[in-house]
């Protein structure tokens, strides 16, 4: 990657020896004028690692997606766009796609609502200078973030299990019939969304809390003097000033929800049938259970495209919003 040095206003020949002249020329560059181009060698180890373990797989994944291949034998047949054509009509992919969106958007909405509500409650507690219980509450709500989603899924399975779960204990104790929480696809999908949301709601909460605490209290006092109600203060001051926090939290939660894998595998395994599979769990099933590597790779490419499109679109939207506010 040869890039013109840009250190001098009158350029020398490209790639020429870069002399470290003490002459101060007007630079439009930020950064360190004393660094030679050689300093770029420092990112070679990282870039080499990405090249082998991320970029090469990304490219070869696209190539594999144009073939029919079982994943291990030497014979790969080129089938062009057949895998992609199949993908658009495959009911399993259709179900997994809908589920992926439910997991992604469902979790994101739940996490923003609960996370912001908790952050507001904690923020009020701080401003009223009662912080003892507040730190404990923050620590407890945040705790599941540090636990592996697999372990979290296992713990919640103990609660929702048909035969021995704590929830059915309560139901039968009240004289009801046992409920098949995790083997009915509708309730299983709902439970997975709730479990994923509760586990990571702490992240949204601390992001919003940090955002709230950076808002000067003067703004609220001024608004109160002008006679603004609590709701008017919230919509007029809090929401606009939380824009950066909204952007961060929403993008993080959405990526996390769209690529959901661990919790589903532990709690339902994608079952009953394929009814609770996400794109991620479906890829692993197509590859390892059905020995259908070419098709699994095509689903992988589709998942990557979906996540990239949503992330870039959200980032673009929030950046525009930020400019409007500033």
């Amino acid at each position, binding site marked *: 990657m040869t890039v013109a040095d840009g250190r001098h206003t009158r350029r020398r020949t490209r790639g020429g020896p870069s002399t470290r002249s003490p002459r101060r020329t007007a630079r439009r560059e930020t950064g360190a004028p004393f*660094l030679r181009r050689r300093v770029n060698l420092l990112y070679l180890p990282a870039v080499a690692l990405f090249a082998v373990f991320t970029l090469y*797989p990304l490219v070869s994944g696209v190539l594999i997606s144009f073939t029919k291949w079982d994943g291990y034998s030497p014979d790969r047949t080129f089938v062009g766009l057949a895998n992609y054509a199949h993908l658009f009509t495959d009911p399993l992919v259709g179900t997994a796609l809908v589920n992926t969106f439910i997991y992604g958007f469902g979790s994101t909405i739940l996490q923003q609502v609960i996370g912001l509500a908790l952050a507001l409650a904690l923020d009020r507690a701080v401003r009223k200078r009662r912080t003892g219980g507040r730190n404990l509450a923050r620590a407890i709500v945040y705790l599941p973030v540090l636990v592996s989603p697999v372990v979290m899924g*296992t*713990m919640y399975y*103990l609660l929702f299990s048909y035969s*021995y779960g704590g929830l059915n204990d309560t139901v039968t104790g009240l004289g009801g019939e046992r409920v098949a929480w995790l083997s009915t696809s509708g309730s299983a999908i709902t439970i997975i969304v709730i479990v994923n949301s509760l586990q990571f709601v702490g992240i949204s909460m601390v992001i919003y809390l940090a955002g709230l605490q950076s808002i000067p209290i003067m703004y609220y006092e001024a608004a109160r003097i002008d006679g603004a109600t609590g709701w008017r203060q919230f919509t007029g001051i809090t929401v606009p000033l939380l824009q950066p926090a909204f*952007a961060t939290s929403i993008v993080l939660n959405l990526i996390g929800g769209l690529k959901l894998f661990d919790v589903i595998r532990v709690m339902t395994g994608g079952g009953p049938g394929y009814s609770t599979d996400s794109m991620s769990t479906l*890829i692993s099933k197509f590859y390892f259970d059905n020995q259908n590597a070419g098709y699994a790779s095509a689903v992988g490419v589709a998942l990557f495209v979906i996540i990239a499109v949503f992330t870039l679109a959200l980032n673009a939207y929030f950046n525009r919003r930020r400019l409007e506010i500033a």
Partner: protein
Amino acid sequence: MKRALSRTGLAAGLIVACVVQLIPFYITLTTALKPRTDLSSQWLFPTGGVYWQNFQTAIEDGGILRAIGNSAIVTLASTILICLLGALAAYPLARRETTGNRIVLAGIIGLIMIPPLSILVPVYTLMVQLDWINTYWGATALMVAAQLPLSVFLYASFMRSLPLSIEEAATVDGAGMLQILFRVVFPMLKPVTATVIILTSVSVWNEYALSVFFLRDPSVRTTAPAIATFFASQGSDPNAAAAAALLTVIPVLAAYLVLQRYFIKGMVAGSEK
């Protein structure tokens, strides 16, 4: 009156949130302390003393202690590499903002978007070719590749906030690039290094989506796949699975109790773009 009501409401809301978050831990604890034959409600602690056999089963049949050791090895190796490679890569990207370097940095940050499962087929094929399946090495390489983009991004953002004058002074004194890096720049990076260590070690310790496929052998398996496998094999004995889950949570809980403030700070710092 109205104010007192709203204050009670706030407190009640926070208490409900805490109780909800603690339910799974509570259920797991009561389950882990009872024998399978104990059919009392999961909401109750055992009445006839604690049944320690579950933990023994988890350790002997589930290989949970071995898994914790494996997780420690992979997490330590990955975290060291992620800090070192991340800081090295971030320095030129933060300090020499040429067009090419901007593109490289944007590209590296873009890698954060790639879901691990979307490249499962090619990565697995590559690991088979390298013969790195079921090796600490292979797992570490994948963890580093997955977590390094965030590390580079955090180091680069932090370095931009450091004053240039110190490095300039060192240059005037005749220090070379590597000398400046190791003696001047790296010592200033302690706060961001703490953030990177916390974020990456938690992610790697809890990682499942890759390790479940690349570490299948019980001798190298880390905690997340070990728990999942043990739980699946213990279909009729949730009590031992609960004990295993508790055992893997204990190291994380201990770290959290000691470093709680850093964990939360680190997460906020790591998420602010």
